[in-house]
């Protein structure tokens, strides 16, 4: 899949990974947004913005298929291959960083111990590979989850506030990983209250969509 996306990249127009049509979201009888429409192509990074409660998390969960889509459509022209990292990190306290990464990766591909150690090193957890997750700090736990970015071949990343809990160095590193992913034909949709330091970030401001919903 990965290779396929990569080869199509060579052609003139990058392939569309995600297409959103007239999407609306309603929670508990409050309409959050209506008529959302955008297309995520390979090589693009989308930053979903909006104040607290605007519906950023809800939107990401709809894209991932974790929240029902009652109105509108979400489609994946090249197949639904995505990596979703939400507020909850899916980290098991009783398992070590390496073990956690192992089962999380196994959901899609298999990985070797070496690959996992390399990924953990990239996210700055060298020396903590066999520490139990319960004994790690908030930022270190998030880093375990982010290590999945280095092992998962899915072209589309859906990341909910991936910059929280990371230290300042970590925030920079993470954005470097994003660039790397975009370069290899991936695409990213993320939410964040901090501004990204990258070029060509496409902004989707939900406060505008909220106005429309009212």
């Amino acid at each position: 899949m990965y290779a396929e996306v990569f080869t199509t990249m060579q052609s003139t127009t990058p392939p569309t990974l995600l297409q959103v049509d007239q999407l609306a979201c309603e929670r508990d009888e409050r309409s959050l947004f209506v008529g959302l429409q955008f297309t995520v192509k390979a090589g693009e990074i989308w930053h979903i913005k909006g104040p607290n409660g605007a519906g950023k998390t809800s939107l990401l969960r709809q894209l991932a298929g974790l929240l029902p889509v009652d109105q509108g459509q979400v489609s994946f022209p090249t197949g639904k291959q995505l990596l979703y990292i939400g507020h909850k990190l899916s980290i098991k306290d009783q398992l070590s960083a390496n073990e956690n990464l192992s089962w999380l990766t196994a959901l899609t591909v298999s990985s070797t111990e070496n690959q996992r150690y390399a990924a953990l090193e990239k996210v700055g957890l060298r020396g903590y590979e066999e520490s139990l997750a319960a004994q790690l700090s908030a930022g270190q736990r998030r880093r375990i989850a982010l290590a999945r970015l280095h092992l998962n071949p899915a072209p589309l990343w859906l990341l909910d506030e991936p910059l929280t809990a990371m230290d300042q160095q970590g925030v920079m590193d993470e954005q470097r990983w994003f660039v790397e992913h975009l370069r290899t034909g991936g695409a990213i949709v993320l939410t964040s209250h901090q501004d990204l330091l990258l070029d060509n970030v496409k902004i989707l401001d939900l406060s505008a969509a909220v106005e429309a919903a009212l």
Partner: protein
Amino acid sequence: MMSFVLSIIRRDLLLVMRYPAEMVNPLVFFVLVVALFPMGVSPEAKLLSQAAAGVVWVAALLATLLSLDILFKADFADGSLEQLLLAPQPVWALVLAKVVVHWLVSGLPLVLLSPVVATMLFLPTEAMPALLLSLLVGTPTLSLFGAVGAALVTGVKTGGMLISLLVLPLYIPVLLFGTGAVAAAAQGMPVAGYLAYLGAMLVFALMVTPWAAATALKIGQMQG
């Protein structure tokens, strides 16, 4: 898909191994309930021997019931369930993997220990094989039906008691056929019929519950 199932089984067994108490607990609960009975009711051998099969089965049922929490609760709380549901594999495979672990951890040890506790309650020796066999065929059914209950209550904030309410009525046929088999054996009557019923229920549960639990999990996810 097989490797997906195996990876879940391996992870869950690892989690259990990390705190072996988790594994020993249902077993200890089983023994404690059996032990409470003579204390609460009567230590007389005759009465005990009469009640033995029923008490062992009821204790097994309660022990299974109370260990159902380990099936999905923790995975829901830490977000693992989301990731498992997002994986390309079918959800019923996940359910089956979970059930296998649950049975290995709660059902099997209990079956193996049952002869000991049954002896403590003076179960007639000739009824022992029937007890073992009926538990061996019956406990997987309990785990399977339990998985549906556990899936239904994921995401529900109320404690682990709701699950008992949902699942116990479904357990009653298993209890009745199980104790029936032992009672028949004690009276020297054939038990094959009872075991056949238990087997039929197991097959039925295998066909229905993975679907039901998978649907319940997907529905429960929507609350997140």
